[in-house]
């Protein structure tokens, strides 16, 4: 599919799995991120389950890079804020009246690890699955086609919107607008930039809508798809297991929190 996406084409076993199987695995990752109690458990989930799957999908480099880009800044902020303000007994060092505690650092790392597990599950799905296939798999199971249309269209058209915004900025600069000056000058650019972009696209909407109607968008008739997604009985079973495991984990967590 065209448009902005982090999908990386490939023919690995991970790529050929049914999108819903991978979606169920992402769900389990979210449950793990929320429910696993300690840092070693979370790191084991990432290192022993999620990462090997990324390696199996031949996504290792892109996967780790994306993880680092998102979790890195969080790790930095968390280790500072939690380290200084979480409180605790074991003081590692002190800056003025603020002391940096081991307990705080560990609390920060725990948050970062939860984020890493949830993010890993999402990235694994998104990097190995074409969004169009995912949406097709969902609509085949009764997910509203209109939502699938909206999501896929937005993903496809926004890079061209970005380009148009950049063209407008360039044109304004060519007419003497200075970007290297103060914030107020740059803020002045906003209206001439967003105005034409938004007005133009809103006025195209009715043409788009008519084109859709001409192709039977709101027709209640059953629509068939050119592409068929491969699914197997084994995968169906695995999906149920993944969902059951996720629910069990969350229930266990809830139960142990109440007890």
């Amino acid at each position, binding site marked *: 599919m065209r448009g*902005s*996406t982090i999908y990386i084409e490939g023919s690995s076993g991970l790529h050929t799995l049914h999108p819903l199987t991978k979606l169920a695995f992402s769900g389990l990752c979210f449950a793990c991120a929320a429910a696993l109690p300690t840092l070693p458990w979370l790191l084991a989930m990432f290192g022993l389950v999620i990462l090997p799957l990324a390696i199996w999908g031949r996504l290792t480099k892109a996967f780790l890079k*994306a993880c680092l880009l*998102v979790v*890195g*800044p*969080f790790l930095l*902020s*968390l280790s500072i*804020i*939690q380290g*200084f303000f979480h409180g605790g007994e074991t003081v590692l060092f002190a800056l003025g009246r*603020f002391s940096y505690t081991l307990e705080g650092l560990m*609390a*920060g790392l725990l948050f*970062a690890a939860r*984020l890493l597990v949830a*993010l890993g599950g*999402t990235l694994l799905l*998104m*990097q190995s699955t074409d*969004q169009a296939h995912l949406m097709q798999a969902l609509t085949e199971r009764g997910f509203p086609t*209109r*939502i699938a*249309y*909206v*999501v896929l*269209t*937005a*993903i496809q058209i*926004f*890079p061209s*919107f*970005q380009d*148009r*915004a*950049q063209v407008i*900025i360039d044109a304004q600069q060519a007419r003497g607008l200075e*970007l290297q000056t103060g*914030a107020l000058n*740059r*803020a002045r650019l*906003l209206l001439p*930039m*967003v*105005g034409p972009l*938004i*007005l*133009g*696209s*809103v*006025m195209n*909407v*009715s043409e*788009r*809508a008519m084109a*859709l*109607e001409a192709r039977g*968008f*709101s027709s209640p008739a059953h629509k068939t798809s050119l592409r068929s997604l491969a699914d197997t009985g084994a995968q169906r079973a695995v999906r149920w297991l993944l969902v059951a495991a996720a629910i069990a984990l969350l229930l266990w967590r809830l139960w142990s929190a109440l007890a």
Partner: protein
Amino acid sequence: MNSFRKEFTTLSITLIAVGIALNLALGTVVLRLGLPLYLDSIGTVLVGALVGPWAGAATGFLSNLVWTLTGLYPQAFAWAGVAAIIGVLAGVFARSGWLNSIGKAALAGLITGVVSAVLSAPIATYVFGGVVGAGTDALVAAFRAAGLDALMSNVAQGTFSDPLDKLVSFVIVWSLLLALPAREKARFGNLPVASTARAPQGATRRPAGKAAKSAAKKTATKKAARRK
């Protein structure tokens, strides 16, 4: 439920897709301008204003889903509910005529910004450990150092940036509604009639030029043209 269905025609579905694309495009381009604004909800406010609260909610929610799906900002989905509420507020404010004057539009933006800051703070605090992984975390650290607790530090940080951002977004949408031909506005049917009253013939076919702008102003002042 009837109003819900009315907001999801083929036409408004198409507008929602465009609104999401606008959120993403502006969100990423404005980042490059280096302003202390996000402007990643102009599309949400616009759809909410033109079509209504439900459509605004859908635009906000799905925008954050798309931020996640495209991998541009994977953590966005955690805030999808807040984005939906911004869309609802925009729809309600526009329906009650708050987007007809710049002063009211700015106030509506401020209120939306405060609501969004207050609702975002618990998510940042309890899901992400009180940080968002961006430069604004320095503010959170400063508020913690000043003695505020975890949740209040995030509320305080949010009220620094969100109201200004939403104020600018609402004012931009207000000015766009002035420039948008009355025919386009009437098509979606959320705005009160005074601001969507019929424009003089000839002005409607033209793109958003001065003619349409002045036509919109003229019709807005014509109180007599207000239909029941």
